């Protein structure tokens, strides 16, 4: 396991949760606000299960501040690993933007069941992602 890319981004539970915020109005937001905007906002453990709201692929090496494969000294586009990302609707909470892992682009569809996970990002850091819930598990849930 690497370091968390942001110490407050997800909880340290054995089954970690992405951290959002609960506004005084009851609305759930992501990410948890910082600074003055955090006043009156309670940290809130977001649901580990959600449904795919939209998706895309990242096919080219992003410029800085990207720090993933391909961005290091002496690295370039050939070192870049294309990835999938999307928005995941956490029922009754908020729609979060996330990497999508363990899936192929052609398998993604609107409303598919996804679960939260932690994945390695670069030599130093881990980041968060969502991955498909297996068919059997999805029906049991």
């Amino acid at each position, binding site marked *: 396991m690497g370091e968390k890319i942001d110490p407050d*981004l997800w909880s340290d539970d054995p089954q970690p949760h992405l951290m959002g915020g609960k506004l005084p109005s009851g609305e759930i*937001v992501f990410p948890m606000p910082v600074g003055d905007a955090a006043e009156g906002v309670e940290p809130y453990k977001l649901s580990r299960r959600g449904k795919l*709201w939209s998706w895309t692929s990242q096919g*080219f090496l992003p410029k*800085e501040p990207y720090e993933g494969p391909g961005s290091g000294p002496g690295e370039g586009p050939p070192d870049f690993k294309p990835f999938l990302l999307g928005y995941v609707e956490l029922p009754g909470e908020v*729609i979060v933007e996330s990497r999508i892992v363990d899936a192929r682009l052609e398998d993604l569809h609107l409303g598919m069941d996804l679960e939260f996970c932690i994945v390695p990002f670069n030599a130093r850091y881990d980041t968060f992602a969502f991955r498909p819930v297996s068919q059997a598990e999805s029906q049991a849930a």
Partner: protein
Amino acid sequence: MSENVYIIGAGIHPFGRTDGRSGREQGVYAVREALKDAGLEWPDIECAYGGSAAAGNADIMVNELGLTSLPFTNVANGCATGGSALAASQQAIASGMYDLALAVGFDKHPRGAFNAKPAEYGLPEWYGQTGMMLTTQFFALKIQRYMQLHGISRTTLGRVAEKAFRNGTITPHAWRRSPVDLDTIMNAPMINDPLTKYMFCSPAEGAVGLILASEKKMKELGADGVKIRAVSVKTRPPNSFEVFQAGISIEEGGKPTVLASQAAFEKAGIGPEDISVAQLQDTESGAEIMHMAENGFCKDGEQEEWLANGWTEINGGKLPVNTDGGCLACGEPIGASGLRQVYENVQQLRQRAGERQVPGKPRFGYSHVYGAPGLSGVAILERE
């Protein structure tokens, strides 16, 4: 009661890449073209508004244009820089304070996708570090969901780009002047699914200057003016879905484009059916499709039929859209694009658009710009 405002001069520096000429120098070029078009000299201009996103302040142009002591306000409003400059100069004349104003926008960006810093948008660092701080992803994510919900096909995305490049071939100020066929567009490298390389605009260079006048001044000069019927700039409403959002509300919110469009139509006292020619923000193919509906020109999903039948072509019979090839063929110099759309409508309404002239006598021209962090500007022009 506010004064009527007219655009009496329009100048453009060709879009694309002009090595050896700074963004601001391209701006100065466009201003001189606009002055020439209006039959005016720089000392005639009473106030000016303008800016760029990445090519410096506009007010320094007085060094080249002349030290006439006019008030020159820098506008730094991201993608809405041009729209905001137009709105400010329109207000300056509508208020009755001035009779002649300049709106100018220019830019010059490095090659490759725009990169933005999370902190400047109030976002945590991890958002940029992990590769999510990309405008191209937002547009792909927005059109992907829209296609699923409203039955838009990938071929329709391709048709938008094909039309843009075709219009570019007959537009002297366009960057991309060669046609690209549908197969090439559809089979090009995927940037962000479902959008291929040819479906995205590229950061570029260019400049536009517009001279605005009061009705009294226009008549005094005997100038060839196009009336500004309405200008509207709106920032995002609650719960909207915009570029650079790590989290979106589960409540479906409004859209800045819908707000700006409705406000402009209300101000103008006309509806979408009255528009003869439209320039809609086409950062990529999907944006043009979604903006057709957000601006009220069709219902969600009808774009499939519109594009298949060529109804947005210059001679398509319904509503010509992005007659100069839009951002797809002209490229995207952020500070200049909003005013390019208005420039194009001025040319179309004056029937000076040459090979790309829309048929008949177009009366109302509509332009719409959208950008980060969720704002839209709409202008409706009228040929009286």
